[in-house]
């Protein structure tokens, strides 16, 4: 199939970027979205032009490195990651607009690549449990009720891709934080640091310049891992509890 691509080009973090239009022919519907961009880059290379920079790593939907705004939708029209999106979701003759995640806390590094270091710093503030290593305890010594284990596991599937921020009209990272808070908060191992975790993560989130949540719900609709809005309720509840405990 034949496509018209409008793609954001930006030489580096300091440059002002612009949208540029490319025509691409011979795209197979079995290609993934990133393979389609690979084909375009080969053509640009052959012409001696600078290829389009974009992020990817696993290309199997588990690492969270890839992420593009495709026709105004984070990760495109399906509920999946950009690397798992296939060209059969598009039609011959389609015009596709491709932009990087837009959030001031995710500055553009080059073209479609953004720096999501802000997420790493939020994780550094509490997305962990403290445990002594070296002497692994007997796994069955800490019982976890089934429902809690299941909820914790489901929320642990967040891959930190940033689609929630990209889709949110407020540029908030509440769904991401909520996923981490719920993942660790449902487990006995997550309890000792629970109050401190939410306060520090939210403090870092606000410091990075993400917006406040207004429960609009675009995040959950964009999330490739289908993290539900309940985790934001959990996040708010944990913060309210920490407030009550004087943190």
């Amino acid at each position, binding site marked *: 199939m034949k496509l018209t691509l409008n793609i954001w080009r930006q030489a580096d973090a300091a440059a002002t970027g612009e949208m540029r239009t490319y025509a691409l022919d011979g795209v197979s519907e079995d290609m993934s979205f990133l393979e389609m961009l690979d084909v375009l880059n080969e053509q640009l290379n052959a012409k001696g032009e600078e290829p389009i920079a974009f992020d990817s790593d696993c290309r199997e939907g588990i690492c969270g490195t890839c992420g593009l705004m495709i026709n105004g939708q984070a990760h495109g029209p399906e509920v999946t990651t950009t690397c798992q999106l296939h060209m059969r979701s598009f039609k011959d003759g389609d015009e596709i607009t491709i932009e990087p995640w837009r959030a001031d806390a995710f500055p553009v590094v080059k073209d479609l690549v953004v720096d999501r270091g802000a997420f790493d710093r939020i994780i550094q503030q509490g997305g962990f449990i403290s445990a002594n290593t070296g002497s692994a305890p007997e796994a069955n010594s800490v019982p976890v009720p089934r429902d809690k284990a299941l909820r914790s596991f489901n929320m642990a599937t967040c891959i930190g891709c940033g689609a929630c921020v990209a889709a949110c009209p407020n540029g908030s990272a509440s769904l991401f934080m909520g996923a981490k808070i719920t993942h660790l908060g449902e487990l006995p191992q997550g309890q000792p640091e629970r109050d401190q975790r939410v306060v520090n993560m939210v403090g870092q989130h606000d410091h990075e310049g993400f*917006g*406040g949540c207004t429960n609009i719900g675009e995040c959950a609709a964009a999330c490739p891992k289908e993290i539900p809005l309940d985790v934001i309720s959990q996040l708010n509840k944990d913060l309210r509890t920490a407030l009550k405990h004087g943190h």
Partner: protein
Amino acid sequence: MTPVATHTSAPTLVKGSRAARSTITLKILMAASGIVFIGFVLVHMYGNLKAFAGHDAFNEYAHHLRTFGEPILPYEGLLWIVRVGLIAALVVHVASAYALARRASTARTQKYAVKKNRSSSLSSRTMRWGGVTILVFLVWHLLNFTIGKINPSGGATNDPYNLMVDTFDLWWMTIIYLVAMLALGLHLHHGTWSALQTLGLTGTAAARTRAKTAGWVLAVVIAGGFSLVPLFVLLGVISK
């Protein structure tokens, strides 16, 4: 082209974060003040329906609001307690709405060329303009019936029932009130569920559905209930 080293706007880890200074606390204040408003508009809407009981019943109710609690409370005592509470809630609500709206506008300074809404409701996307609409309406509404007692058709202003009928006999006044009720209905549709979510009371899919249903019910009951009186005045059912 050599890409320059990654630069981030805030590469530091913050220390000494406080729960009270977070954006979520702003939201909790907004939710709490919003719930105060919901309580008020429910009672206010119920009171307005007294218009259907006629001139004397309506004015008696208005008078009763002022003498409620006497002689323990002074004349208009309860009314002033409620007014002070509402003014405080309004200051909190608007100030936190403003702070959050400003944050949101700086969180994404470079807009998307193309952006689609996938699942958000119209009401959720119009909270800020809807809120401003309600605020502007509120100023007129208080000038009309409380502070100014302005009779737009030029008649007497010392009789609450007659002032109300004179106002809504003008079709364009009724339109202004109905537009304001549309804004209020939209605000309540999203605001009710949003407040429950902000307070952390919607931790399951079922609770979320219930909260959204509550939003619909409150929006229809409150905005619909308020709209009945102006509509029925205009239709001539309620008259002097």
